[in-house]
């Protein structure tokens, strides 16, 4: 379909006549979950809550259970009841769509196949009457970008298409209200990007710092730390497997444990001291008081989910007693992990990667590295507008720690403000949906099916990289 055949430029003027389709479907294609849905036709007056209802979060994986059955995408949440030893195949590696065989299967299942699509809001019936807005992680490999463009336009044939850097789309959100700034009058009617925004996107496969200026990323300032939620889960899995039960095959369960118990410590040394078992003998109260918790593991036979509860130091003794006295089998079969310093040591690697031997800087340092290659005049503006998105932002204590460390590291004259949206996972999608309501802006960046057929995929790649604008 004419990929390598750029036509003479005279034809381009004809192609311009065709405009983008009315409907815009947005896929924020994360490594862990896809955030997908149709963009609204216009800006809603209330704060995004109405818009967000159109956005669904779908696991982006093929899952294989112990019983050797394979499930696709959203089936993980609806049909899988036994979470032990789940195996995952993820089409997205390091934040980039690598395996299109798997990705196509999940997309087909989630958006195209009318039998399996969960709701009408997610079904793409006529791709040629739809504009697809697909996010990608910054610094993608050109070969992978080309693959994405070719599949989207040649396999499904979307009427319009825009591949955009995910973190930059956050600038289209109502950032001012998040930071408590006055909202400019003109932005109430049409969506427009905020001027300076430093986006920290801490997701599944990595943590990215992206300085965004007027909705466009400043490429030289983009920095990546190769630690994300996946690494935290694996690390927790490893530590627990060494100290307690062997959990190396329980990625799904340990992820639940991580989400339930982990937090970012504001005083690492003090918390370590508090959880040190050596303190027990000195006649102090039980070490780890207030930090140590039990996590009761899920029981697939009884169809029970796992949950966290306060630590009971005498649990094992009690169990022994009740076994003698013949207590209910339920209490006996229950298995719990005791989590003490694991709760904050694991997320700590986001701030001190040295703890696992990584030679990269932690998040606050990475922000400074990103700013150091930008003009100093921009530093105050970026430091005053730091936005954190991505699943790791939900770790309790993350925001406080980040703000404290940034404040200490930044120049005293600069105001440092770090904010997290209510829903950091779907915030990028929300920003994209606001961009989609501004048809003029969308038209600037997106391409139509006709243009793709005229100019081919390498042209599309150049267009999305911004090389042809202005």
């Amino acid at each position: 379909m004419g990929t390598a055949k750029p036509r003479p430029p005279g034809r381009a003027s004809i192609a311009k006549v065709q405009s983008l389709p009315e409907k815009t479907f947005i896929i924020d294609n994360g490594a862990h979950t896809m955030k997908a849905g149709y963009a609204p036709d216009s800006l809603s007056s209330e704060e995004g809550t109405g818009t967000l209802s159109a956005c669904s979060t779908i696991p982006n994986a093929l899952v294989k259970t112990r019983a050797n059955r394979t499930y696709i995408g959203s089936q993980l949440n609806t049909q899988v009841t036994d979470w032990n030893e789940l195996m995952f195949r993820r089409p997205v590696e390091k934040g980039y769509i690598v395996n299109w065989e798997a990705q196509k299967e999940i997309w087909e299942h989630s958006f195209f196949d009318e039998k399996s699509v969960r709701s009408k809001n997610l079904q793409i019936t006529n791709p040629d009457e739809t504009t697809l807005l697909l996010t990608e992680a910054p610094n993608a490999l050109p070969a992978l970008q080309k693959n994405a463009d070719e599949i989207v336009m040649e396999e499904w044939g979307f009427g319009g298409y825009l591949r955009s850097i995910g973190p930059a789309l956050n600038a289209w959100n109502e950032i001012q209200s998040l930071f408590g700034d006055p909202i400019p009058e003109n932005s109430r009617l049409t969506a427009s990007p905020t001027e300076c925004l430093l986006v920290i996107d801490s997701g599944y496969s990595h943590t990215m710092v992206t300085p965004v200026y007027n909705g466009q990323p400043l490429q030289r300032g983009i920095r990546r730390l190769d630690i994300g939620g996946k690494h935290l889960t694996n690390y927790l899995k490893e530590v627990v497997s060494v100290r307690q039960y062997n959990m190396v095959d329980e990625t799904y369960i340990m992820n639940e444990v991580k989400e339930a118990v982990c937090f970012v410590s504001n005083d690492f040394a003090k918390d370590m001291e508090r959880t040190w078992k050596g303190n027990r003998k000195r006649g102090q109260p039980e070490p780890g008081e207030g930090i140590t918790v039990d996590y009761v593991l899920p029981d697939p036979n009884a169809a029970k989910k796992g949950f966290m509860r306060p630590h009971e130091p005498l649990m094992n003794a009690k169990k022994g007693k009740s076994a003698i006295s013949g207590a209910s089998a339920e209490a006996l079969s229950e298995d719990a992990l005791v989590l003490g310093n694991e709760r904050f040591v694991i997320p700590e690697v986001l701030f001190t990667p040295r703890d696992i031997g990584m030679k990269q800087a932690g998040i606050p340092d990475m922000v400074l590295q990103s700013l150091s290659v930008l003009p100093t005049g921009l530093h105050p503006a970026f430091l005053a507008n730091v936005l954190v998105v991505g699943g790791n932002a939900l770790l309790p204590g993350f925001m406080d720690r980040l703000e404290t460390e940034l404040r200490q590291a930044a120049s005293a004259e600069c105001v440092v403000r770090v904010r997290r949206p209510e829903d950091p996972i779907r915030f990028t999608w929300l920003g994209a949906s606001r961009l989609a309501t501004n048809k003029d802006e969308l038209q600037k960046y997106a391409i139509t099916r006709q243009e793709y057929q005229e100019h081919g995929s390498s042209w599309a790649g150049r267009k999305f990289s911004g090389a042809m604008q202005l």
Partner: protein
Amino acid sequence: MYHVELLPGSSSHPTPGWTYVADRGFDPAKAAITPAIGRKRGIRDPGRADISSRQNNAIVRHLAELDRENHRDIQIPVPVKQQKDAAGRGTRGKVTSNVRRILQSQKTFRNYLDDEEAALAQAAAATTTQSASQRAIANRVTKHQPSSHRSSTPATPKPESTAKQQRKKSTASALSRASTIPPPETPSESTEQQPPQSGTETESDEQKQTEQPDDQLIKSEHDDDPLLRSYIPSAPSQRIMQALLAEPPLTYNASRAGPPITTPSSNRQFCCFLVCDDVLND
């Protein structure tokens, strides 16, 4: 899991898809001058003399372990569809050769990255290292700017000198200059701590009003003391911003965050983690 490590050899030939590296194996000349610390251990177990590289390998292996999706290597094939496939295709026409090639590709990210690196190395030997590639981009930016515009270059900003030059001008002229520049700035809590900026006329008027009291501060001879002055750099011009926005993305490896800037007083040591096994053994 097997592990292939590419050693930088003197005669490596990077090409897309594969790399030839000369394996020069164990170098006895180098082994002879290994540090004399822990001689006894060296005698007992000569192969373990190179502690740092062993530790390094352990760390690399551990990090690779943390990066895994599943603990075991398994294949999860895409579920097979029943004949419906052909019917589903009907409206969409034929599979193009591009699509077929991409769908059948079983390359991993590592493969793509290696291809990319090899292609880059071939294109320009100078831009293979991270520092070199960054420098190259920095040069490109400075080229974009005319030489007359020397107030703040993005590549090597010299805050001290430019600040002095600008402060010698009257505030009025500074403001008028600023108002011609669209601001790279969102409103924030304290306007006086921000660089001069304004978008609309009304906004710049407000700015002038807030700046007025500054001029009426009590003057003293220490005002010009560079140590006491609070330095706020001015926002870069629109032209610099355009040049910055027009830059191409960094390569995947160049965008990786570097080692920490603020060096800690000491490395934290944990005795109970896997990484440190080697430390304990030695």
